[in-house]
């Protein structure tokens, strides 16, 4: 198994995965992107991911169901919820159900990288921000 942080990213808007995958790869994450929650759940039934990043509002299966699935199947995994419909009650519900963090859209890739780094730390690992910083400095 790779030493890199294994991240599953689920969002039904293709642009989110296209934008975030390279941003996370720069800090050494191995990212699998899904737009269909059913496919993501099928993949997570096979393999444990260190971090799962999931949108909340999606058709058929929503992010809360994904969170519940991961918490039950892989309790060690850290789940980060992202949503364009953030409000206090939803945030509290997600945290109560075991989310590691909750982020409102829109956010900058760096915001997610910081949360991923915290998740890695909680898992007993460190993430090297060096590559991302060099990339940012180069514009």
């Amino acid at each position, binding site marked *: 198994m790779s030493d890199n942080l294994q991240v599953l990213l689920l969002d039904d808007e293709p642009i989110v995965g296209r934008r975030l995958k390279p941003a996370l790869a720069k800090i050494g994450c191995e990212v699998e992107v899904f737009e269909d929650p059913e496919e993501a759940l099928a993949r997570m039934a096979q393999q444990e991911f260190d971090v799962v990043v999931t949108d909340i509002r999606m058709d058929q299966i929503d992010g809360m169901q994904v969170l519940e699935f991961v918490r039950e199947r892989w309790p060690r995994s850290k789940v980060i919820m992202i949503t364009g419909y953030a409000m206090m009650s939803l945030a*509290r519900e997600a945290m*109560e159900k075991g989310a590691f963090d*909750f*982020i409102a859209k829109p956010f900058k890739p760096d915001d997610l990288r910081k949360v991923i780094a915290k998740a890695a730390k909680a898992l*007993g690992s460190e993430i090297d921000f060096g590559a991302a910083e060099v990339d940012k400095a180069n514009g």
Partner: protein
Amino acid sequence: MTSGPGAAREVNLMPLIIVSADDFSQGREIAHRVAGVLGYRYVGRDLLASVAEQHQVSQEELVQALEDPPGFLTRRSRRQRLLAFIEEGCLQQLQDDGVVCYGLAGHLYVRGIAHALKVRIITEVGQWAQAIAESEGVPLERAQKVVERRKEEQKRWSQDAYNLDQSDPSLYDMVLSLDTLEPDKAVEIICDTAGYRKFQAMTYSRKLMQDKALASRVRVELMKSFPDIKVEANDGTVVAYLQSLKKDQRKKQEAVRQLAGGIEGVRHVEVHVIRDYFGQAAQSSR
């Protein structure tokens, strides 16, 4: 990813605990004890000394702004300005997790913050009046009238200052009555509740707190020239709402942009003008 020993430790994300009470001294005692038990930082009326110094006002005036009912000596615009100073100072302190806040009206300006556990301590008239009757040596009936008047004044104060009725239980996550609970039990309940995951700090709610702090900083600056201005902030974008006559609109918008644009943390300024119809009517009838 590099793995280390002692893996799988949770990052501690402590909530904010905002306590308010209708009997000030009992609430303060409980808030203090909660901070002590949890090892949180206590932010209370001591903060007013630095707020007073920063804005060159007296500490006594700040206390009056927090306590006196509307229409009591201080002009409303002056009082709103003093409260804005307190709000700014308090929000600055609440950027850290693991804080117990009391006596600064925090419960009225941290609404919508998921990691702020808002607790109201209530004391029914009878018990409170008994305490006043004993401590001040006045008849119970008179003490009861004092308490009833204080409760009414507190309600009018919050409605006037923040357009909210602070006796409304829906403003709080938890309302504890000292008629049915001993203070020890109240402390225990608050400390237990603070451990619930739903009140943990998260990126979303921390960002909202940063936005509130920035908005309050900008508002304090703009109130010098525009006493009734309202300000919102989102990730460095500031939206200011001000009243203006049509003829002054552009000049005022530009002035707000200039003032707000120079404040640290502000990246973009939008100014929305609410037409001052009363002022307009007054001018046109001259």
